[in-house]
C-alpha cells in the first residue's frame, strides 16, 4: 500500500489563555484542536466542516505550520512536519500551499500582481527573471485573469478576481496539496460558483489534493470526495461524500444537514428539521464526556449517563468513522 500524501494523527493545539500562576504557568488552556486524525491521498480531497469556533481553521493553520502543534503528528509523504525547523520547512512550503478566506486582507496592497506572483517563484528559486515573468502570465491565464492586468494593484480588482490572484499565488510553486480556508465564503453566490468551478478545474489539471475548510456543506459537497465533520475541536464523523449526505451517522451531522436551508420552497415546507437547542459550548470549558451531549437530541437513546461521562472514540467501520455511543 502506498503511503498517503498527508497523514494527521492525534493533532492537538491548545492555546494558553488568561492570567498565569505565580510560577509563570498559564491557568487555563483553550482546546482549539483536541486529537484530530485524518489522511489525504495524492490527488484526493477532504472537506473539513463545522461551525465557527469548532477549530477547523486552527487545524488547517497547525498543519501548514503557522501554529506549532501542542502534540500529535503531521506527516507529509512520510516526513514528520511538526518537528521541522524554519529552514527545513522551506521545501515543504512549496509543496503545501494555502488559500485564505478574505481576499482583501491576504494580498499586500502595496504590491502589484506581478510582484505578488513573482515572490514565491523567487523564494523557491524557480527559473531566471525572464522565465519567471512568463510564468506569472501563465499563472494569471490559468486562473482566468487577463494577463494584461499584471501591473495592477489588488484594490483595482473585485473580490472574486482577488481570490483568483490568491489562487494563482498558491499555484506558483506547483504544490501537491492546497489547504483552502473558507475560500469562497466572502464572495457573492454568482461569483462563488465561478471560484468553485475554477478550483475543481485546477485540481484536475494539476493533479492537486485539497484540504478544504468550509462551513457551507453544499460547497464542500461539490469539491470534496470525503468529508469530515468537526465539533468543539474533535472529529465526530468522517465518510465518503455521498454516504455522509445520504446517511449521516452522527446526531450532530444529522442536525447540521437538516439546518441547511434549501433554495426550494417545496422542500422547505415539507422537510423535517432538527432544531438544536442552546449554543456551542466554550472550548475553554468543554462539557464532560461527549462534547455534543448537552445539545444532542438522541442523548436519551443511550442507556445510563455514558454520554456525559465517557468521551466517545472515533471508531472506523469500512469506509467511514464516527465518534458516538449510539448503536
Amino acid at each position, binding site marked *: 500500500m502506498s503511503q498517503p500524501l498527508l497523514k494527521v494523527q492525534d493533532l492537538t493545539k491548545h492555546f494558553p489563555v488568561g492570567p498565569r500562576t505565580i510560577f509563570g504557568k498559564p491557568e487555563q488552556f483553550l482546546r482549539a484542536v483536541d486529537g484530530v486524525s485524518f489522511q489525504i491521498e495524492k490527488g484526493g480531497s477532504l472537506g473539513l466542516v463545522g461551525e465557527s469556533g469548532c477549530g477547523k481553521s486552527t487545524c488547517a493553520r497547525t498543519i501548514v505550520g503557522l501554529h506549532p502543534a501542542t502534540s500529535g503528528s503531521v506527516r507529509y509523504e512520510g516526513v514528520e512536519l511538526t518537528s521541522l525547523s524554519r529552514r527545513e520547512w522551506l521545501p515543504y512550503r512549496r509543496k503545501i500551499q494555502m488559500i485564505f478566506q478574505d481576499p482583501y486582507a491576504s494580498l499586500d496592497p502595496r504590491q502589484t500582481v506581478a510582484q505578488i506572483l513573482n515572490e514565491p517563484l523567487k523564494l523557491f528559486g524557480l527559473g531566471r527573471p525572464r522565465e519567471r515573468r512568463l510564468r506569472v502570465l501563465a499563472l494569471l491565464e490559468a486562473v482566468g485573469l487577463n494577463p494584461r492586468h499584471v501591473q495592477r494593484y489588488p484594490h483595482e480588482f473585485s473580490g472574486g478576481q482577488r481570490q483568483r490572484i490568491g489562487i494563482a499565488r498558491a499555484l506558483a510553486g506547483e504544490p501537491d496539496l492546497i489547504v483552502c480556508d473558507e475560500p469562497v465564503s466572502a464572495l457573492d453566490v*454568482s*461569483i462563488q460558483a465561478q471560484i468553485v468551478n475554477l478550483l475543481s478545474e485546477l485540481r484536475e489539471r494539476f493533479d492537486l489534493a485539497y484540504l478544504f475548510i468550509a*462551513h457551507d456543506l453544499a460547497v464542500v*459537497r461539490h469539491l470534496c470526495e470525503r468529508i469530515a465533520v468537526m465539533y468543539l475541536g474533535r472529529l465526530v464523523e468522517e465518510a465518503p461524500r455521498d454516504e455522509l449526505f445520504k446517511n449521516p451517522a452522527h446526531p450532530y451531522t444529522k442536525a447540521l444537514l437538516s439546518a441547511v*436551508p*434549501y433554495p426550494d420552497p417545496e422542500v422547505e415546507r415539507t422537510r423535517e428539521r432538527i432544531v*438544536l437547542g442552546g*449554543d456551542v459550548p466554550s472550548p475553554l470549558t468543554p462539557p464532560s464526556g461527549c462534547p455534543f451531549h448537552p445539545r444532542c437530541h438522541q442523548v436519551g437513546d443511550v442507556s445510563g449517563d455514558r454520554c456525559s461521562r465517557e468521551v466517545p472514540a472515533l471508531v472506523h467501520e469500512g469506509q467511514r468513522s464516527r465518534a458516538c455511543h449510539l448503536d
Partner: protein
Amino acid sequence: MMPLLSVKDLAVRFETHDGVVRAVDGVSFEMEEGETLGLVGESGSGKSVTNLALLGLIPSPPGVMSGVVHFDGQEITKLSEPDLRKIRGNRIAMIFQDPMTSLNPLLTIGRQLTEVLELHKGMKYAQALRQSAAALGEVGLAEPEKRLAQYPHELSGGMRQRVMIAMGLLCEPRLLLADEPTTALDVTIQAQILELMAEVQKQHGTAIILVTHDLGVVAGSADRVAVMYAGRIVEEGPTQDIFNSPVHPYTKGLLSSVPRLDSDTSCELSSIPGSPPDLAEMPPGCAFAPRCPEVQPECLLTQPDLLSSGSPQSRNACPIASPRASREASS
C-alpha cells in the same frame, strides 16, 4: 383595502468623489399586513439601502433620497425627523445583521430594552423592566432577569440576535425590517432564529421585509420574493413562482449558481460570468445586459421597466424573456 406599506419610485443616490452612485434606482413595491417579503440580491444590489431609506435613515449629505413611501395610510417620506422617530422602533422596527455592533456595548441589555418602552409607550422604569423580561422570555432566552443586568459582550451571537429580535418586537410593530438577521450566525443557530421569527409573526401578525443574499433562507420564510440587481427590482412574485419558474435571466442565473445539497455533483456549477456593474458608471441599457446569456441588441440601449407578467402578482423587468408583458404595456 390599502396595503400596509406602499413604496413608489424610491431612489437613493450618493454624491461621492468618484461620481454619483445610484444605490437604489426606482424601486416600487407593496406589502400587506402579516406577509413576508424576501428582498434578495448580491452585495451592492441596494437591498439594505432600500430598507434604511424606508425609515429615513439615509445620511444626507452625501445621500439624496426621492420617492414616496406610504405606511398605514400615512406618507412617511413627508414626515419631520421628530415624527419619524415616533415611528422607528415603534410601529416599524428593524433588526440588523450584526448584533454585536448594533447593540450599545456600554449599556446593559435591560437599559437598552427599557429605553424603547419608556420612549414610545411612556412606561415607568419598573414596569418597562418587567415587560422587557417578559419579552426576553418570549424569544426563548433562559433566565431573562439575569440577562437584563448583563452587557452585550457577555452573550453569544445567537443570544444577542434574540435580544435584537426581542427589542424589535417590544412595541408590537406592524412592520419589521430584518436586514440579514441570520447571516452572522451558524446554520444550527440560524435555524433557531428563523423558527423564532416565524412564530412571532404568527402570534402578532407582523409584516416582515427579510433582506438576505441566502436564497435558501428566503425559500423557507418568504411569501413573496423581490430580486434586486444594481439598485432595481428585476423580478418579483410569489415565492413558489420565483423558484419554480423564474423569468428574468438574472434570477435564473442566481438560482442555478447556488450549490444545493441535492444537486448533481458530477457537472460544474453554472455561474454568471463577469461581475456586477460599478454603480457610479452604469451602462445605459439593462444593468444585467453585459452578463446576460440572452442579451439582444436593444438591451444595451434602453433600460427596461418592471412590468406585470403572467399572473397579477408577478412582475419582471426583462422584455426579452417575457414578450407578452412588453406588448401589453405598449398597447
